[in-house]
Structures are given as structure tokens and as C-alpha cells.
């Protein structure tokens, strides 16, 4: 119950604000531009439907991860810097409950981004046979990635206690995780590219989207990657728990 109060306060502080909504308007405008470009531009519009859907799914996932990292960096370090954490710690709420409430707010943010993206997915993927299964994978893996990266960022925030520094590290992690996007297909086939793909949960997710939406592969082909992502999920939640339990003013 107390977790719910914390979550409610976080949502009201970060999401249900004019500034929070500005993020969503910008997201929507970018998705509008991307969708329109994909569907009307001479060469892009003639991409395979599956390709278009795949690219938009990657963008949405990346956005969810990025916002999770930013929210996470503020979670504890921001409250310490604003002087509000002490009053929270004085109240009879377990630190784990505080962390869970904040994580809940981050997931709510992801849920809103996902909901905003749904109409675009339906429009871009109209007629594509793997649209619904693609959306299901995006919902599940996107949620897992949002948890992984925001839990990691929150744990970092609790340990470093400086929002600026935890943001910098979080952005670095985001670039590392997003590295597959910057590598060419040939580079990804090198030993370095393969290792990066294997250990990187973000790469795991986008490769899964590729296999499901473009290559129409079933779950059994994705099981290995999904298992690795689940492993990261548990690891990130453990890291958050440890970091928060050690957090002192």
C-alpha cells in the first residue's frame, strides 16, 4: 500500500505534469514523422512492411530504455540533492518499498510510451502478418528492458548520490547497449559484434524483433535470448535491492 503512495507521488511529480506531457508530445511527433516518412517517402515506403514495423519497434524500445535511465538517475540522487529523501526515510516505509514505488512509476512511464506507440504500430504494420505477435513481443521485452535499465540506473543513483554523475554513467551504458544499431551487418558478424550481441540485452531484444517480425520465427528460436534478458532482469533487481539497502543519508 505504501508502495502505491510512493508510486502515485512519483507519477504526479514526473509524469502528470506539463513537463512530463511534453515528453509524450515530442515522442508522438517523432513517431508521426517516422511513420509518415516510412509510408510516403519514395524509397522508404517500399521497404517491406515487416522492416518498417521492426524499425519503429526498435525506436520505441530505445526510447523506453532511455527514459528509464533518466528517471532512474533522479530516483535517489535527485531526492538527496533536493533534500527530500530524509523526510521519506524518517517515515515507516521500507527502503525496498520506496524503490518499488519509484520503479512502478518508471514502468507506468513505459506503459504510456507503449500506449502512445500502438496506433503508429497498427498503421505502419497494417496487413503485416506478424503485427500482433510483434506487438506482444514489444510489450513483454520492452517492459523487461525498461525494468533492467531503470533498476540499474536507480541502483547507481543510490550508490553515487549524484544525479549528474549517475546520468553520465547511465548515458554511457545506453550508448553501449545501443551499439548494435551503429554497427553494420558485417561488423556485427565479427567476434566483437557477436559477443556484444550475446551479452547485450538490448541487442537481444532487437534481434528477437527481427526474427519474429521479419523472419516469422517461433518462440523456440527466441528462447535463448529471452532467457538472457530474464537473467539481466533478475541481476538488475538484485543490484537495486543491494544498492538501496546500503543507502544512508
Amino acid at each position, binding site marked *: 500500500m505504501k508502495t502505491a503512495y510512493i508510486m502515485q507521488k512519483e507519477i504526479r511529480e514526473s509524469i*502528470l*505534469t*506539463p513537463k512530463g*506531457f*511534453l515528453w*509524450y*508530445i515530442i515522442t*508522438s*511527433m517523432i*513517431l*508521426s*514523422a517516422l*511513420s*509518415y516518412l516510412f*509510408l*510516403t517517402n*519514395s*524509397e522508404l*515506403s*517500399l*521497404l517491406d512492411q515487416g522492416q518498417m514495423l521492426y524499425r519503429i519497434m526498435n525506436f520505441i524500445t530505445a526510447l523506453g530504455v532511455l527514459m528509464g535511465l533518466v528517471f532512474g538517475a533522479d530516483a535517489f540522487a535527485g531526492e538527496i540533492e533536493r533534500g527530500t529523501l530524509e523526510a521519506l526515510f524518517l517515515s515507516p516505509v521500507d527502503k525496498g518499498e520506496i524503490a518499488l514505488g519509484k520503479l512502478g512509476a518508471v514502468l507506468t512511464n513505459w506503459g504510456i510510451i507503449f500506449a*502512445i506507440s500502438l*496506433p*503508429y504500430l497498427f*498503421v*505502419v504494420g*497494417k496487413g503485416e502478418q506478424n503485427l500482433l505477435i510483434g506487438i506482444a513481443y514489444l510489450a513483454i521485452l520492452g517492459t523487461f528492458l525498461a525494468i533492467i535499465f531503470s533498476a540499474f540506473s536507480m541502483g547507481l543513483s543510490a550508490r553515487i548520490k549524484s544525479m549528474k554523475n549517475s546520468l553520465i554513467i547511465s548515458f554511457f551504458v545506453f550508448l553501449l547497449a545501443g551499439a548494435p544499431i551503429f554497427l553494420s551487418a558485417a561488423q556485427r558478424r565479427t567476434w566483437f559484434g557477436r559477443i556484444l550481441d550475446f551479452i547485450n540485452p538490448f541487442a537481444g531484444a532487437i534481434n528477437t524483433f527481427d526474427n519474429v517480425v521479419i523472419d516469422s520465427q517461433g518462440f523456440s528460436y527466441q528462447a535463448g535470448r529471452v532467457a538472457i534478458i530474464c537473467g539481466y532482469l533478475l541481476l538488475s533487481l538484485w543490484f537495486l535491492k543491494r544498492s538501496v539497502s546500503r543507502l544512508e543519508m
Partner: protein
Amino acid sequence: MIFLTIIAYYTSASAASRIAASINPPFIQANMGDKITYVGTITNNSDRAVNNIIAYISLANVTPGKEAPLDLEDWSANKAIKVDTILPRGTYEGQWPMRLIDSGSYVAYITVVDKNDNTPLSSDMSHLEIKRILRLNPNNVLPVAIGEPVALGMAFMFVAFRRRKWVK
């Protein structure tokens, strides 16, 4: 020496007359995004079977000012076909489906390669005219592309208005 020259000439001439290639239809007019299929016919004019023939399609952009060979990566998935055997006096028909990615004037032709010959063989050119069509609202994207940011903007104004508290 003369004898060898005659033999060499005869071999080339034999290669040239042994296999023939043609492409159909000879002319296509279509729109961007359309799917078409070229049919390439390889004829074995000799009395002996020909084996392990490779046939592939090529496109060249002949739009004035934009002349260039075309990379068929996005246009076609199967550009080359391997034919195991064409019987004496037999024919083989290959199909090359294609998605028309860009507008302009093009020529398409089939090239046939027999490793026993020195010279590859090409068919006549098929002319391809692709028209650009302006799609303003494909997949009904506009209501979403415009409507959603507007709806969120209205929600934003609602939230901003509701949160306006009396401030001293």
C-alpha cells in the same frame, strides 16, 4: 595455325548459337511499388545437353541524367538462377519477380553464363517505365500522425490547467 583459328572461331560461333536467351515482356509500364515478374527463356539450340548454366537479371537506369547500373538489393530477392541441365533443343523458363522501388526509365536483360564458353550471352533489353505516384495518406496514416500529437497536446493543456493552483 589456320586450323586452330578455324576451330577457335567455330567454338565461339557454336557457343553463340548453342544457347539463346530472351526476356519477356519486352516492355512494361508500371507504378512505383508495383510487383512485376520477368520471364527469361533460355533455349538450347545444340544437339547436346548444356549443364550448370547460371542466368541472372540486370537492370540499368537509363533516365536522362541518371544513367547508372542498378543495385537490385531492395528490388529483387533472387537475382541469379542456376540451371542444372537443359536438354538438347530444350528450353528453360526462369522467373524473376521484382518490386519496383523507384521511378524512372530502365532496361532489363538476362545474362546467361556457361563456364564452358568464353563469352556470356545476353538477351535483348526489355524496357521498363516506372511512374512515381504521390501517396498522401497511405495506410490511413494521417489521422494518427496528426491526430495523436493533437490529442496529447489537448491532454497537456488539460493537465496544465488543472494543476494551476492559486499561488500567492
